[in-house]
């Protein structure tokens, strides 16, 4: 479904990697590996279309994502390094806005359920600034429960700041998404109990 060819990434005036290629089929999970600073986050941003590759192109269902931007973004869920939380809004308000801004029509009850399921039932109406790092991360992850219709999940360090229990839960959710025919692409330094071990793409092998 998702494939990349000859990708090269320029950051500032440094070429991070080049000739990078991969292919991701429905139901597959891909872990992006490599040491810090090798360009893992940059690769994810190229794949989402937030950044432009120096060379090469990314294709979704056979179409270049730059030409079919709106269709692609309708099928993509990207959770970046920053959790996209506004401190003045509650987790519930943040989550509802995130869904609505992305173009999903989600009922308030579903948002509440997603937050309860991820373990934030007591923080629903607190302003986000009083949440801990792990809790902030969870608010973002709650979107996963509401985005089953989006086949491609691109996640930047989703396991950071989560406790053991939450890591297992998240791994199960990601495995289930793949079992339903979705694909997941993520960076992580952590081992998580996935149903099937994910394929690994080492960005370091393409470094310049």
């Amino acid at each position, binding site marked *: 479904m998702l494939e990349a060819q000859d990708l090269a990434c320029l950051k500032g005036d440094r070429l991070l990697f080049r000739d990078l290629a991969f292919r991701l089929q429905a139901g597959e999970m891909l872990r992006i590996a490599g040491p810090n600073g090798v360009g893992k986050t940059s690769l994810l941003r190229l794949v*989402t*279309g*937030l*950044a*432009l590759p120096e060379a090469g192109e990314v294709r979704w269902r056979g179409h270049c994502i730059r030409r079919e931007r*709106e*269709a692609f*973004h*309708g099928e*993509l869920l*990207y959770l*970046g*390094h*920053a*959790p*996209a*939380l*506004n*401190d*003045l*809004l509650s987790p519930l*308000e943040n989550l*509802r*806005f*995130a869904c*609505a*801004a*992305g*173009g999903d*029509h989600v009922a308030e009850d579903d948002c509440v359920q997603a937050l309860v399921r991820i373990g934030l039932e007591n923080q629903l109406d607190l302003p986000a600034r009083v949440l801990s790092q792990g809790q902030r991360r969870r608010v973002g992850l709650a979107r996963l429960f509401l985005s089953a219709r989006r086949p491609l999940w691109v996640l930047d360090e989703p396991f950071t700041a989560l406790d053991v229990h939450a890591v297992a839960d998240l791994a199960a959710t990601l495995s289930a998404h793949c079992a339903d025919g979705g694909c997941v692409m993520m960076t992580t330094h952590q081992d998580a109990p996935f149903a099937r071990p994910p394929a690994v793409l080492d960005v370091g092998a393409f470094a310049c």
Partner: protein
Amino acid sequence: MLSTFLAVLRRDLLLAWRGRADVLVTLAFFVIVVCLFPFGVGAEPNQLRAIAPGVLWVAALLACLLSLHRLFAQDYADGTLEQLLLSREPAAVWVMAKVLAFWLSTGLPVIAVAPAMALLLDLEQGGLSVLVLSLTLGTPILTLLGAVGAALTLGLRGGGMLLALLVLPLFVPVLIFGAGAVEAEVSGSGALAHLLLLGGGLAGAVALAPWACAAALRISTE
């Protein structure tokens, strides 16, 4: 499309309400700048009356400029901007919503107190309605143009000053027609032509600025 627009509008208005101290600062800035002029040029009523349209317009313009850097800064810092750029809707839609919310929370309060400040400078009663009308047509143009500058200077050191340098020359036509409208009305020659030009400018800005702003945001977040 409409639902995205409304979601962004509602959220930004809610944020403006929760952070209303910022709005009050903008308003206080406007009031203080207007009050400085009599100290600078003397409190002779005829002189104040003569400079009133220009002073009110320049103060409104500066108040608008003062808060512009906040337009995208928070969303840029916390990652919301990335999520918005990944929305399936065209970026111009939510840019327009953000600009509208911003204008409602900074431009509208300034317009609301402008007549009171005009009385302070002894502007003729007949000019008040034209002042409000010209500000209502003109300040959205300032916000739209300013949004492009704010998007281009996102996350830069010294971005505030740079933003001023970028957008102030572009503000000049708005200032000319806005203050000119009030002056023309007070001097009896009629403000219609000025107001029509402002209206045309607003239509042009609404049509073009959101696209330029969206392109600028993509460039700045890349």
